[in-house]
């Protein structure tokens, strides 16, 4: 965060020339920065308070020894990472399943969300009766809290009292009611579905905004020149949507990777089961092994997140497109 803020103005400005002129410019720029400070201060304070301080605390906690009650007892070295009860060495944690889940979780949710949203946005961009109403309905999952939405799914999928279960049995899709949330694998896939469901509104609206920016006259010209509907979409609309898709994808990757509530509510199996992602594992560790081990794992999660963003920025270069 701090890095981009510091480098952005330098990159956009002209290349500095060594000599007196530079010095004068530097001082005047410093004056400008000082003048801007009162307006930037609230944001900077907020970033310091909710981003930088917790990050420092996370690193500090990861190298201290805690019991499961969070009572500290001195330095831990690398014990929280690779000690007998370390984040990566604690026995009985099904790591293969957890890494696979984490990758599947991010890739499947983000890709299916984007594909569904592309279609949905295209549809909502057409003129038809009741379009406004439909747009409002699609925004609903976004307007309600994720915990609430997920809890509704959880209740609906209960074996004895769940309405979804009852519907599946009554329509003959299932022979008998199934405890979807009681088994790690089925709970994981239900969670994937819910994650897509709650991610669609934001993504659809981002792409819809992009679609509004596609000039009509170009499309009409292409039509006149005999371009088919497919050609018009893939060669004109889709390239113009790239910045919108890029922004939606990046935000979704981070959101989905860090998502805790959906899996935590839907996977009712206790302990280190095969339905965890690294994010939910952090919280399982926090309850059993305390904040030290949980922080050790969150550092790795944090790093993984940074790598994903860096790779994404390098490959897609969304910043250039957005400008």
């Amino acid at each position: 965060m701090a890095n981009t803020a510091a480098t952005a103005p330098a990159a956009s400005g002209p290349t500095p020339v060594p000599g007196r002129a530079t010095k004068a410019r530097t001082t005047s720029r410093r004056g400008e920065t000082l003048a801007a400070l009162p307006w930037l201060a609230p944001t900077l304070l907020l970033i310091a308070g909710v981003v930088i301080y917790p990050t420092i605390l996370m690193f500090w906690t990861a190298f201290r020894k805690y019991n499961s009650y969070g009572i500290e007892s001195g330095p831990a070295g690398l014990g929280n990472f690779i000690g007998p009860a370390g984040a990566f060495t604690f026995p009985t944690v099904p790591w293969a399943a957890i890494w696979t889940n984490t990758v599947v979780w991010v890739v499947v949710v983000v890709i299916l969300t984007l594909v569904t949203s592309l279609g949905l946005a295209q549809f909502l961009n057409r003129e038809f009766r009741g379009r406004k109403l439909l747009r409002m309905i699609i925004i609903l999952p976004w307007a309600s809290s994720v915990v609430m939405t997920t809890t509704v799914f959880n209740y609906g999928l209960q074996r004895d009292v769940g309405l979804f279960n009852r519907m599946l049995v009554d329509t003959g899709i299932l022979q008998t009611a199934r405890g979807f949330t009681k088994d790690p694998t089925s709970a994981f896939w239900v969670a994937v579905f819910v994650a897509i469901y709650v991610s669609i509104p934001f993504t659809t609206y981002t792409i819809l905004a992009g679609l509004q920016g596609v000039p009509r006259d170009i499309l009409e010209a292409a039509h006149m020149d005999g371009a088919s509907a497919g050609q018009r979409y893939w060669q004109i609309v889709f390239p113009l949507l790239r910045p919108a898709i890029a922004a939606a994808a990046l935000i979704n990757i981070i959101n989905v990777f860090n998502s805790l509530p959906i899996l935590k509510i839907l996977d009712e199996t206790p302990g280190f089961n095969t339905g965890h992602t690294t994010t939910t594992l952090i919280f399982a560790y926090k309850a059993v092994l305390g904040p030290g081990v949980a922080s050790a794992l969150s550092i790795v999660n944090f790093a993984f997140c940074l790598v994903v963003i860096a790779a994404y920025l390098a490959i897609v270069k969304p910043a250039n497109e957005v400008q």
Partner: protein
Amino acid sequence: MAKFSTIIAAVAVGSTVALSACSSAGTTPSTSAAGAGGVLPATTIKILAPSYADSSQADWQKIITEFKKTQPNVKVELQIAAWDNFTDTVKARIQAKDYPDILNDNAFISEATAGLLYPITDVMSDTTLKAIEPALMKNGVGTDGKQWAAPDIASARMLAYNTDLFAKAGITAAPKTWADVEADAAKLAAQGVAGYGLPLGTEEAQVESSLWLWGAGGDWPVSGKLVANQPTAVKAFAEMKKLIDAKATQPDPGATNRQAVADLFNNGKLGMYVTHSGLMGVTRTKFPNIKFDLAPIPSQDGTPVAFGVTDFILAFNNNDANRKAATKQFLDLMYSDAQYEGWYKGTGLLPVTTSQIAKAKASDTNNAKFYEVLSYVKFNPVSNPQWDALKNALQGTAGTIAKDTPENVLAKIQAQVDAQS
């Protein structure tokens, strides 16, 4: 915008609280506590307690109101939290170094080992200490021999069985041995209901595992250490697996908590399960159509088993003589017959003071059977520092018995315990 103003408001409120906390700490008179009988100087004591029933808040408030009559200068802050995540609430307070002066919880050894507590003998008068049943009092002694906690409520677990369902399945008596349980559960399952309720989810796996282990004639401590992968435990887990494999339990035992099993029982969909007096009180008043009886918990050879639990009062050391003195007076008042009777009845569980136990035995016919088994209840090893690790391992892993062998499951549990010691 709305969000930002909320943050500002939150920060403002937060800092006000912090400031007032500082000032109150700063102005605390340095003169130490007044004599035991006198009026104490202005101070605040904090209580953190779980919600046993809807009335819990009011039950504590009654004692607080009475306390304020003699100690008008002492402010009492009460926080009641739900049982589901109570441990998390306690952990959050400890990590924020906001120690309650009085904590009502079901464990004490982690706090005691970390040196955060007063020995409970420091904050209770001799009269109060003597009023508590010695057999229950023993449960609050740490491995160092000090009395770190005092029980405030007891409960016993017994087998509840639906007499209508038993009659329909042609079963005439409550099961006594494991063989009886298998046969009866199979007969019940043939009637289309679940036979035996087996809650191996996070909430109760440690209770259910202990019951089957005791039923096999074993116990967790083996020469002072807690051992999971012992032959008797293998026998116990094999028996649970037998019931699951025979489809004689409710579905998904590994993801079921006690309340879900109780719900099945209350709706006539379950033949028998291990229960306590509080849950049966609910069945009696809210589900009058369910006819049930209570029996000791079956074991392998038929020796009756019963599970005992005591919850505790812990007193945190806040390094403040006035708070300590106020805590002591509060606890003495709480355990007095006049206050304690109403308070314990509100929980729906059993009392711990000798006078109240005697009184309840004579009058409380609904819970008569629970009082009978109190003489032979066994307790989980809550005073052993390893118990926290074993409990967590059981809660997270015991449920995997449905899909794994007893040897494997117990080896995993042992590995988790070993990694933490």
